[in-house]
Each structure stands twice: as C-alpha cells, then as structure tokens.
C-alpha cells in the first residue's frame, strides 16, 4: 500500500513537548483565562494525519509559532504547513483543523485557516476553499468525508500526548 501514499516517507519531527506551565492564576476561578495560542495549539496538535498514524504536530504540519489569537477581537489565524508542496491532502487537513475548532471553540471566534505562505503549489486555491463556509458546510454534509474527518479527529483530545500504537 505504501506506494499509493501521497507522501510515503514523511519526515517525523520530535515533538517539542510544549506544555503549558500551570500557574496559580489558572486554578483561581476568579481570574479569567483568555483563549491563547497555546490553547488553540493543544486543540489541534494531536489531530491525526489522514495517511499516517502520526499527529499533525509530529509531521510539523501545525506549529505553535504559526497560530495567532486575538481573544479580544474574537479572531484566530492558523497557518499550517503541508508535508510536501503538492500534497493533495492539504484541503482535508485544513478541513480537519476547521472542524476541530468549530466543535471546540466558543461561537464568537472567527477562524481563518491558511497554508503557510510558500509551502504549497496551490495555496491560493486551498485557502479559498477552506475559508468558503458554504463549501465547508456542503462538505460536512457528505457522510463519507465526515467519517474521514472524524477519524482524523479521534486522537485530537490527546493534546500533545503520544498516540499509542498497538
């Protein structure tokens, strides 16, 4: 089967083990914890790649540095990096990130998802499709596609812990 994969031998990165340092303020219910890049990264880092039993973080598709959060103005911008510049899975990966955030973030957030500049040969087309909510809505009414997305999201709650194989 391996020869049919889009990217049969992806580079696997050591996860940087970014873990939020828990502060006393976070345990104090009287202090508001605004949603920040770390929270967004934790939500998406453990989404599985559609092809490999690896997380988007392990494949360096999502990086903490490429998430911008403007909590006050309800804006989130995520840039992701496809493993190869002609990756035909780029739209699906972006869709998985979008669905994860649709399901996890408060409704007030407007989320923009983009391919990191210069990392994909069709970045304009991929970005346009990922940010067209009508096409996203139509895609999510496709049961087969939704199953694939849900499969990729089944590991998302690990928030950076390793996927246990076997």
């Amino acid at each position, binding site marked *: 089967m391996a020869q049919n994969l889009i990217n049969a031998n992806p580079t696997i990165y050591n996860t940087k083990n970014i873990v939020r340092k828990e502060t006393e303020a976070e345990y104090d219910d009287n202090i508001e914890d605004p949603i920040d890049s770390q929270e967004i990264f934790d939500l998406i880092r453990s989404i599985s790649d559609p092809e490999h039993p690896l997380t988007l973080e392990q494949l360096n598709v999502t990086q903490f540095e490429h998430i911008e959060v403007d909590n006050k103005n309800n804006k989130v911008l995520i840039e992701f990096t496809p493993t190869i510049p002609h990756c035909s899975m780029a739209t699906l990966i972006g869709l998985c990130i979008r669905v994860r955030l649709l399901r996890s973030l408060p409704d007030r957030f*407007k989320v923009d998802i983009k391919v990191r500049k210069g990392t994909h040969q069709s970045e304009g087309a991929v970005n346009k499709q990922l940010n*067209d909510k*009508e*096409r996203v*809505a139509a895609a999510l*009414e496709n049961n087969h596609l939704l199953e694939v997305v849900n499969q990729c999201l089944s590991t998302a709650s690990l928030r950076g812990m390793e996927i246990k194989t076997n």
Partner: protein
Amino acid sequence: MPRLELLATLEGHQDRVWQASWHPTKTILATCSGDKTVRLWAPISPTNPTEWQCVETLEGAHKRTIRSVAWSPTGNELATASFDATTGIWEHDARENNWECVATLEGHENEIKSVSWSATGALLATCSRDKSVWIWEVESDNDFECLSVLQEHTQDVKMVAWHPKLEILASASYDDTIKIWKEDEDDWYCVDTLSGHQSTVWSIDFDATGDHLVSASDDQTIRIWKMYKPNNPQGIPTHNGEATWKTICTLSGYHDRCIYSVSWSKVNNYIASVSGDNTIRIFAKDTEATTDEDSPIFKNIITEKDAHGVYDINGVSWFPNERHGDWLATVGDDGIVRIWRVIE
C-alpha cells in the same frame, strides 16, 4: 441620523439560516436553512409589526441544506434550491390552505446555490457548484423544460438574479466574476463578464430600473455597476452591439470580513449589506456631494454592529414594495431571523 429599529426576532430554525425572501405583495417572509426546511413567517395581526409567527413549515422535499428560496412574481409558488442538487417547486393550495412540493427539477451535478424567477414568471434560473447556470421554462401543469445550460463560469456559481423587467440574467461566481446573460432566438449567451472583484462574488442585486447592479464579495468590497448601451453619450466602448457594464463606485473599508449578501431597495434606493463581521450596513446615494451619474458617491448612513450577536449574517432583503418599504429582514448563523425598520 437614521437608525435601525429591531421589530421582531423570529426563532424556529434548527440550523443556520441562509436566505430571506419577501412575498411580492403580502407581508410574508420565507426563510431557508441548513435544517432542510423553509419557514414562512407573518405578523400575528396586520396592525402590530412586532409580533410574528411561523405560519408554515415546508419540509420533507430536500435531503440536504436549502440554500436559497424564491417567490414567483404572483406569490403562488416558491422555488427552493438545495445542496441535494435538486430544485423544489412548491404551490399554495388555497382550498387546503397549505403548501405542497409539486415538482422537483433535476440535472445539476451537485449543490445548487441559488434560484430566481424572471419578472414575468415565465423563466426560472438555477446555479450550482458544478459551475453551470440553467435556464428553465415554466410550462403549464408544473412542467419545467430546461432551455439552456450555461457553462462559462470557471468555478462554483453562487447566485443568479433576474433583471427587474427584462429577460436578462446576472450570475455571480467563486471565479470572482459576474456574467450577464441574454437570449437570442432561444439561444442564451453571455453578453458581458464583469471583472474587478478580487475574490468570490457572493451576492448581486439590480436596482429598480435594472440599469444598475450591486455586487458583494469575499474581497470585503461592494461594487456598483452601470449598464452602458451602444453609442452611449459618455463614449464608453461597447462590443458586438451589446451593452457593457462598468464599475462606477466601489465601497471598501466598511466590512472587515466576507460580505455574504446585498439588497438594493426598490422603494427608497438604499443598499443594505451584511457580513461575516456581524454587521449590517446601509448605504444611500449622496446627491449633495455629486450629481454625476457616472461616478456617484454612496455614504454609509446606518451601521448596526452585532446585529445577530457574534454570528455571521448570511442574508439581507428589503421589503419589495411601498407598504413596508422601510423594512429589512436579516438571517444569520445563529438560526435567527430578524425584521428591522429604518427610522429616519
């Protein structure tokens, strides 16, 4: 300063609402939703515009989202465009006082995005993600014949809108253009392609005369286009004896996310726009600033922020006639329909 007053908040849809469409003569609003239904809303009493109820729910005919709903010019029929690739035709049965799906138009390969009736009600247009625009002839006994399949857009076609008087059709697309279509002896062809928007054109609407068109885009601008006929006194060049459309005004810097819908009032000439930035904006022609018909100035006279709370607003529609010419309906991702009145 003019402002918007919220008349009513209509709750009932179970998913995001995509479009609102007013009955051509009666005070009835049709809305369509991701919940696969169309709801018809009317005031409980004709003298009190603040209390509305859902008078009818049209359901069962579509398997997926209903993206667009349009009244026929008589108001006796409704057309529904669905992601399930079919168009439903609904008829009001006066004896039973209910609505029934009397025809299903098939042919598009995938999601239908918009449906529109021509001014006489003789023609129906639909458009789809399959990049095509279809023109249907309305025959007797709920029969519809496809007259033409127009395949010149290179991407997903988002909206179709008929000229208010003539058999001229406009279509807006994900390919960033608007196309104008006309018939010549049963042959439909593209008269003009309107380029200028930098991203998806989501919505278009003619003014009352049909000589102007407004368009709204993902590029966060609104453009106003004017039709120039051959041998126009302004000297705008035309080709093949066809009219040409030129942008005469661009409204930018008002919305900071995608503009999903625009409506040009046939009564007071105001333009209303709604956006993913949660805001309704209303623009009026500034006749004090200039009287130049070829480069008019439109000023933003009303801004209603967070009109559907934190949610995207997907559709806006002015009441079509004098009776409530100052009314506006908006629909949002919150599943809510709102009726507003302009207070001058």
